[in-house]
């Protein structure tokens, strides 16, 4: 625990070096693609985790911010030739502005009602994006012409994408880390655990909910820009998708909501699993997702806190000394 030399920080440091060295060993494009998707989802889910895991605002409309980021930078690139690197700034502003607009009214709602409102916002934005053809090209989506180069954030090989995604993820981990250790993080958790009590204690809850929304939506926009440049094709149906939003949430939930590394654990497990499930059991259409659904029910109801807190609890019980990144995450399941 003390300083940089604790066991844990050495472990994390080794992990980081391994992450930077990985492309030198991994030449297979399929695995590379999966690794990039894992990092991408971990980052996106990590951004959701700040709003939902820490501040307890269970949003199922996170794809709004992701999609706005993707659309903002893409439209700037395709229509005005603005580099996506600059587009990131516009995407951040756009996404945070919409986040504030949604959050301002929606934060008055509690529990499931907030969740339903985010679902509705997500649907409204999808319909508008499909309908407003002059701006978004409607359902036909936008095909980004492939012009490789650093300025256009498009590359022939996967390695540059890998490093951009990794940088994004590190940024999100760092921000989460600081939130976790700061007063702001404690306020978030106080709001999550008991909003009324937090208010009585003098925490300006709406303001702090808004902070979490701004950070969360901004970071999601970042991943949106990356996604657009990686896939080179965006359409409303794919980016403003409720199922996609619940996928994002699921990674954090399985990994451990309200923990720094939960989203990463979730993404590491779920992304490859999804990939494998798609090609597995191909003899009977639907069997793969049927199993997926059943496992989802069992895992979520038997392990409501997610994998990371469950493991650390187990380890702790055996009397081993392991520091955790959890702050009251174990209590989520008693909150009603």
């Amino acid at each position, binding site marked *: 625990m003390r300083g940089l030399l604790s066991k844990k920080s050495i472990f994390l440091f080794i992990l980081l070096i391994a992450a930077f060295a990985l492309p030198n060993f991994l030449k*297979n*494009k*399929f*695995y590379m*693609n*999966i690794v990039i*998707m894992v990092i991408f989802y971990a980052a996106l889910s990590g951004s959701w985790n700040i709003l939902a895991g820490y501040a307890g605002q269970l949003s199922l409309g996170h794809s709004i911010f992701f999609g706005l980021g993707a659309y903002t930078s893409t439209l700037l690139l395709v229509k005005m030739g603005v580099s996506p690197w600059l587009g990131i700034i516009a995407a951040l502003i756009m996404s945070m502005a919409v986040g504030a607009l949604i959050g301002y009214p929606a934060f008055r709602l509690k529990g499931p009602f907030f969740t339903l409102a985010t679902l509705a916002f997500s649907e409204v934005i999808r*319909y508008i994006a*499909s*309908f407003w*053809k002059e701006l978004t090209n*409607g*359902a*036909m*989506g936008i*095909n980004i012409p492939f012009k490789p180069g650093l300025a256009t954030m498009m590359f*022939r090989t996967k390695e540059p994408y890998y490093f951009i995604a990794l940088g994004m993820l590190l940024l999100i981990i760092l921000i989460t880390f600081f939130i976790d250790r700061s007063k702001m993080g404690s306020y978030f958790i106080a709001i999550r655990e008991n909003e009324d009590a937090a208010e009585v204690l003098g925490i300006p809850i709406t303001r702090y909910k808004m902070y979490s929304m701004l950070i969360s939506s901004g970071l999601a926009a970042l991943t949106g820009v990356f996604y657009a440049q990686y*896939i*080179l*094709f965006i*359409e409303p*149906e*794919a980016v403003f998708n409720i199922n996609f939003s619940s996928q994002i949430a699921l990674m954090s939930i*399985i990994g451990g909501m309200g923990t720094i590394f939960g989203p990463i654990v979730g993404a590491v*497990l779920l992304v*490859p*699993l999804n*990939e*494998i*499930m*798609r*090609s*597995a*059991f*191909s*003899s009977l*259409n*639907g069997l*793969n*997702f049927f*199993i997926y659904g059943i*496992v989802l029910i*069992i*895992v979520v109801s*038997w*392990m409501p*806190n997610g*994998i990371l807190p*469950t*493991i650390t*609890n*187990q380890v702790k019980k055996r009397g081993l000394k392991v520091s955790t990144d959890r702050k009251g995450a174990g209590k989520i399941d008693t909150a009603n």
Partner: protein
Amino acid sequence: MRKVKSVLALVLVIMLVFLSGCGSGGSQSASGGSQSASGGGETLKIGAIYPFTGGAALLGDESFRGAELAVKLRNQKGGVAGGKKIELSKADSPDANAAQSQANRLISQENIQLIIGSYSSALSMAASEVAERNGVVYWELGAISDPITDRGYKYVFRTNPTSSQFAQSEIGFIKEVVPAKLGKNLTDLKIALVHEDSLYGTTVAGFIEKYAKEEKLNVVTNQAYNMNSVDLSSVILNLKKAQPDVVIAVSYLNDAILLTRQSKELGFDVPVFIGSGGGHTMTDFQKALGADANGILNADFPQYEINKSFTPGLDEFVKLYQDTYGTAPRSGHSVTNFMGMNVLLNIIDQVGSLDPDKIQAAARSYKLEPGKSETGWGVEFNDKGQNKLGKAYVTQWTDGKLVTVWPKEAAVQEPKLPLLKWSERK
């Protein structure tokens, strides 16, 4: 108890990872390659990207069946290039993201050099992008969105017609046939467009509107709706107000049935109703509507009541389909994929391997006259890989069957126009 359960859940997750690993290993031999054991020759593996789950599963599966049958038939007849068997490796891709990663998987995991697909244009765009960048041939058998082959990629080919070719066929039919049948001038005809607002509907309707304008046709209204709508009464009331002579619809199955039922309920009669493939040509459309489907026209892939001398091999296909799956084909998607797959198999036969460069070179010089394939289409690829000789045929629902009525060389009967009123359809 709680603790025990959470440990169990953890074990379950780990087991699942292993289980699906085994599953994916086993699936390759299970799919499509039932005859691969015989012959003793080499097996050539082709990736097949289709949506087998999710909302597009029905037509995705129907499309795949066509390709699967073509392979089965060819393997029964001794394979390609002197006894080599073909095997299809199925890759379920319910959305564009999945298509993208499945294409990556097929190419780098299974070392596949040739991918077919995909029914859905969004999947096709994503998968073909990956194929092109990896120098692997992507052979589209059923998606109709124009941009797939507009990009001018080296390794992307498509045998079926595009949405602009669909739109041209529809406008061509209206020009040639409708004025005489209704006794009106072409430019006096009031044409209404109604389409679902996702990629498919928007693209086809966009081309129809464009060509209609070029021909100076009078488009009186253009109604877009969401395909997941469960009530289309407002669309129909808007149409009713416009009093069109011709309605052109671009719909999926769900909305096509709803549109027809609600038109009847609300008493919206129109002299000419043309669907643009999609839902309007599915057997399930007819099953749901019964006699009410009668008279509805369609511009789509070839159907099964067609001039058989123009489509050699079609009867054989229908019989094979019936024997294999126990039902008649559910739409023209299967035969369209079957025809395209046969063209591809012929090319593989010539080349003798799946080498992408040889295949793409052979494809560019491959030629087939119209009237010599199961769909009647000829084959000649333009420099962007699009087959120039594919076209949509106009068919009409007649007593539960889609009968080809246009163009003349494929037709088996005259179109019956104007349509009967709802109350008179039996």
